[in-house]
């Protein structure tokens, strides 16, 4: 047995609730035992469209949080933006319907063994897995600050109960419709120079992750980012979701964001080469 995809299972699960939250859907799924192995940063691959659909590929969603308590046993929460045909289908599924899913998948966020000052940065619904992460970090004695950003207020995902798991929360919108007008990266240089950050955990659009990596380069701040690249399989067999990553000898490897990610070391991703041609090892 290989360590790749260890603990991941294909299960048929039931939707317990499906609520609209701003521009997103909060979907709660009864998945059973597999929650024991789900960690912040893991994702789930869900079959969409029903048995006779022309959509043949699974859709990957970040696991927002899991719980193994409560009347239903193991539950998994997803925050879904109904943008494409697959996510729209998922958002229309009613309570009680079945989902064929594979989880947990991917490399989760690394949790420090010592208490650190952690800064969690979420773009849009990329904030979803950060609240579960915040709880884990707090339990380890970390200070947890959070910065969320989006183009506008309706695209901010910040549930009330999630706010309790962080020491501070700041919100930025590009149009100024809530919080401060600006981008999540605006306060970073001063926070880093003040020594207020040891580790940044980020999840959101690739442009945001790249910008954070730019700011943390040449500093001691560790940047763990959850990347987003389109996947056909989610289990490591299709080789479509690769990212150029710089190895210790300086050469480039194309690593799968489903297996070697989604959480990657932001300083090792060769952002300038993403989508570029004519690469040699």
């Amino acid at each position: 047995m290989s360590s790749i995809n260890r603990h991941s299972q294909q299960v048929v699960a039931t939707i317990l609730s499906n609520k609209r939250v701003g521009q997103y859907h909060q979907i709660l799924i009864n998945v059973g035992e597999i929650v024991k192995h789900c960690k912040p940063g893991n994702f789930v691959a869900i079959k969409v469209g029903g048995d006779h659909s022309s959509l043949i590929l699974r859709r990957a969603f970040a696991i927002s949080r899991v719980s193994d308590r409560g009347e239903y046993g193991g539950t998994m929460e997803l925050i879904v933006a109904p943008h494409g045909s697959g996510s729209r289908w998922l958002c229309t599924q009613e309570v009680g319907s079945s989902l064929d899913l594979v989880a947990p998948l991917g490399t989760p966020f690394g949790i420090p063994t010592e208490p650190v000052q952690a800064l969690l940065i979420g773009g849009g619904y990329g904030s979803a897995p950060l609240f579960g992460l915040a709880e884990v970090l707090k339990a380890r004695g970390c200070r947890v600050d959070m910065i969320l950003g989006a183009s506008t207020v309706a695209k901010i995902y910040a549930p009330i109960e999630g706010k309790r798991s962080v020491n501070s929360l700041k919100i930025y919108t590009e149009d100024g419709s809530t919080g401060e007008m600006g981008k999540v990266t605006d306060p970073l240089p001063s926070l880093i120079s003040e020594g207020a950050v040891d580790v940044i955990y980020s999840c959101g659009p690739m442009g945001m992750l790249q910008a954070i990596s730019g700011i943390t380069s040449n500093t001691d701040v560790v940047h763990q980012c959850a990347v987003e690249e389109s996947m056909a399989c989610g289990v490591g067999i299709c080789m479509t979701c690769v990212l150029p990553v710089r190895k210790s000898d300086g050469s480039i490897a194309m690593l799968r964001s489903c297996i070697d990610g989604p959480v990657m070391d932001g300083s090792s991703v060769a952002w300038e080469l993403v989508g570029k041609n004519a690469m040699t090892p």
Partner: protein
Amino acid sequence: MRESSFDFSTTLGSAWFPAPVFTASGCASSGRELSQFFPLDEIGAVVTKSVMLKERLGRPTPRMAETPSGMLNSIGLQGPGIDAFLAKDVPWLVENKARVIVSIAGETVDEYGVLARRLRSVPGISAVEVNISCPNVDNRGLVFACDPESAKAVVESVRRTLAGDLPIIVKLSPDVTNIASIARVVVDAGADALALINTLLGMVINTDTMFPHLGGKTGGLSGPAIRPVAVRAIFQVHEALPKVPILGMGGVRTGRDAFEMILAGASGVSVGTASFGNPTALIDVQNELKQLLISKGFNSVQEAVGFAHRPSKANP
């Protein structure tokens, strides 16, 4: 027909397999990833992702576009190169009791020969798939399967190197006018079996950016959308060369689809893109196929191979 006496085994050249369902090259990486979902020794064999001489990074992203009942991929033969592959991937598969068909791809005729030489003495390999039809190469002239002379040269080079050591399965492209004539050329050059079909060359244009969507511009179309093309190709080649075993593939998602390919003339069936949507697709296809063959009254896989070619009562 009772299940216990049903013969589910098949052969491709001199290689014997206990079951007729295989992974498709490029759709199972090197096997480890799927081993979490089912024991690899339960299927016919793992056909590994086509390996080249040197490490290769492949094409830039985006590498994938979903299409109606299918997808385009533009991987560009990313892989570790033959040295790392033989050092790590093959031993792992052998250790895990998987039967292994190694798929090779070269940039030149000589490279195929060199790759074949590297495989000759490796223990645990059942057969070699010679991939002469990957569409994701920059020079279309290098799609050897589209040109009879190049196809012949590659297969002769591999045949010379391997002598009778390992059966040679040559993977052909559907993007040709007459696939049976290409099949005849490669069989005359020494192929023991044929893998039909590789993906079809396609393109998606992103209507927002108004550029081709894939980083490599073109990609290979796979999935149920291409299944009728595959069935047709298998039927035509089996008709022309009824004694040559065929490993059929292209959009197989269910046991019914695999059965259809066997009726057309396939001795074995590969499941590729279906694994992306369902990591246990191979086991599902295999179980359904077995039940279907038994329920139709066949005593073995072999009995059903090419059954659609029998004379009909109406038109003898």
